[in-house]
């Protein structure tokens, strides 16, 4: 046994030269070092300023926020058409925002889908806080989702009944994404575990499910659900169109998430499994207390990646005539006087999608840092 002596390494310089010499010094050191770099910096700065200015001009300074009605009570968009390309016609949003957000839901009842959206967001926020991660959260979800269903359908407590085909806009997107992922995630965990099972039947079933579903595009599944499936049902028996799409999305998301979860399971060192077994834990105890918490923690980035992807994939339901947020936005510009203002509408809808996706992405970054603290030493 040799004796190791500890010699402290010499003190390193501060890791970052970020602020050495203040912001100016940083610019000098990083952006303007050498002729070539300086030229690129200047060129990019020029382009940035130029396009920012024209964007501000288009989006704010030259924009039209409201248009008058003509003598038939229809919007007169000629002023918007005159400034096309120079200024944005936000009047289309002013006029159509309620349609984009809530689709063909009865106009006087728009407060109901509005509350639904608020409930969804509140649900996300509550679920995101670690201090609420308790068993009661399941109850909160059940209650909130029931309330959402009651509000959307109505028919009780003096609310008028609104059939599903009149729902639309943001609530549809949130319903499809939330229910889709909430049901797909447990399914995915089961399938991922099943795929690593030693029981051949279960394993084969899970492999077939994942490979079958992953082998076809989501759009064809939606198509199957909406076009083929009803033909197999007896006449007069109709399963709701939204429900069929929802099931297709759950099955599809389940297959993808299962592979993500399986990646996490496989990345755990074998010692973890063996140690858990050595403790005498049953399969479910081992999985629930040792394996899954570590595995899921590892796969947060790809999980969120899939979540974000699916949030946006819900817009594919346009193929079966459901007015989700994007379809409602596209439909809003079909009226002749509003045709041609697609850019404004797409920018607005893009912003809504971005807010949701960016929030998910920021939250996952925070969660990842929080849960993996023990790795960063």
């Amino acid at each position, binding site marked *: 046994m040799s004796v190791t002596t500890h010699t402290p390494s010499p003190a390193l310089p501060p890791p970052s030269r970020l602020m050495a010499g203040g912001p100016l010094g940083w610019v000098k050191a990083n952006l303007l070092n050498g002729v070539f770099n300086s030229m690129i910096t200047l060129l990019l700065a020029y382009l940035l300023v130029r396009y920012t200015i024209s964007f501000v001009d288009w989006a704010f300074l030259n924009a039209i926020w409201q248009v008058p009605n003509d003598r038939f009570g229809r919007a007169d968009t000629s002023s918007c058409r005159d400034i096309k390309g120079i200024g944005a016609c936000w009047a289309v949003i002013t006029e159509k925002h309620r349609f984009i957000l*809530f689709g063909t839901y009865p106009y006087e009842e728009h407060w109901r889908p509005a509350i639904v959206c608020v409930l969804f967001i509140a649900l996300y926020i509550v679920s995101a806080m670690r201090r609420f991660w308790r068993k009661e959260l399941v109850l909160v979800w059940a209650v909130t989702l029931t309330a959402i269903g009651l509000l959307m359908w109505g028919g009780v407590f003096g609310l008028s009944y609104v059939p599903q085909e009149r729902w639309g806009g943001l609530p549809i997107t949130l319903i499809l994404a939330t229910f889709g992922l909430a049901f797909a995630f447990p399914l995915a965990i089961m399938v991922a575990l099943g795929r690593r099972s030693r029981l051949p039947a279960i394993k084969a079933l899970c492999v077939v499910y994942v490979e079958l579903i992953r082998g076809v595009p989501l759009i064809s599944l939606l198509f199957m659900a909406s076009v083929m499936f009803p033909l197999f049902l007896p006449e007069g028996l109709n399963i709701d169109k939204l429900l069929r799409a929802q099931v297709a999305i759950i099955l599809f998301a389940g297959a993808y998430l299962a592979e993500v979860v399986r990646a996490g399971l496989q990345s755990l060192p074998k010692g973890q499994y063996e140690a858990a077994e050595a403790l005498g834990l049953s399969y479910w105890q081992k999985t629930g207390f040792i394996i899954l918490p570590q595995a899921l923690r590892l796969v947060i980035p790809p999980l969120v990646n899939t979540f974000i992807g699916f949030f946006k994939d819900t817009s594919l339901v346009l193929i079966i005539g459901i007015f989700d947020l994007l379809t409602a936005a596209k439909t809003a510009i079909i009226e002749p*006087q509003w045709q041609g203002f697609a850019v404004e509408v797409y920018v607005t809808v893009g912003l809504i999608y971005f807010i949701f996706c960016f929030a998910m992405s920021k939250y996952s970054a925070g969660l990842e840092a929080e849960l993996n603290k023990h790795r960063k030493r």
Partner: protein
Amino acid sequence: MNTMSSSGKRGFSVRRLVLGAMGAGLLALTAPAARAQAPAAAPAPAPAPAAGGGSNMIETIRNRGTLICGVSTGLAGFSAPDSQGRWSGFDVDYCRAVAIAIFGTDQNRVRFVATTPQARFTALQSGELDMLARNTTWTLSRDTSLGLDFPATSFYDGQGFMVKRSLGVTSARQLDGATICVQPGTTTEQNLSDWARSNRVTIRPVVIERQEDNVAAYIAGRCDAYTTDASGLAGVRSTQQNPNDHIILPEIISKEPLGPLVRHGDQRFADLVRWVHFGLLAAEEFGITAANVEQAATADQRPEVGRMLGRGGDLGQMLGVDNRWLVNVVKILGNYGEVFSRNLTPLGLQRGPNALWTTPGGLQYAPPFR
């Protein structure tokens, strides 16, 4: 079935969700979750889409309380939701007209279901819809092999081309080598290739799913020409910054009789849809409008008008509806001409072949009401 009363809506849907997740194989399980409106008399196993023979659609619709009508997800002038989410348009008015004929003056007796070109026929075949009014072309194969019927032609259309005036093209035959924007999944695409082949014109189709995207591609110069039904072209042209920059070429390369569809199986419902159309035409022919229909119903001395409007005979009862059905329809929606000018004239569409037969070139003709 009383568990499905409105108080249990949520639980009901969750159950359906779970059941649905169990997949198509467990049909037997999903059966109790069927819509409450399932016609009680409908024969349970219906292997072919054309089944349902003998079922009384009008009675089914009346019991349900609403007519379920499939419309386009959005086509200016024919069916589109307005800023408040209310459907309006030419096809939408046909749905409303049938609903009014069945239910009388109550306006909210129709549910509009937005359907895509690909899903529209299945939705009707499977019984999800009662009728489809979705600018659909009447063709032999659709009429026969799909198990559907076209009771009437509500709008005579034809496929045309629009090009930019600056291109200097005056005839479609000059489009040799041109790129042409076209929508997939419709007869439009097939007509285009049929026409190109028979006229030995080489064209390069650019297939884009949505009409607005097609138009955007055409405007941006991605395609030399845009082809769709002439009604659609007129609509697109009228909303351009400068409509005179675009011309619609004189060639009409196809016949596109558009009309409502119903499922095979109940001819009485098809009769009703057909005669609602004829009723709108006849009302225009006899000069009966939304404004004067009430007065005509009591005072007009012409015998045919009297029969039409339910003062003499029971033509309405023969159709299975109230004798005053046409009075109600015209009072709310107007006659064919009024429906046309409310929905399609703002797009810049002329009556053309859709004028009454009494006008030269007009094709719209109603058989006698007797």
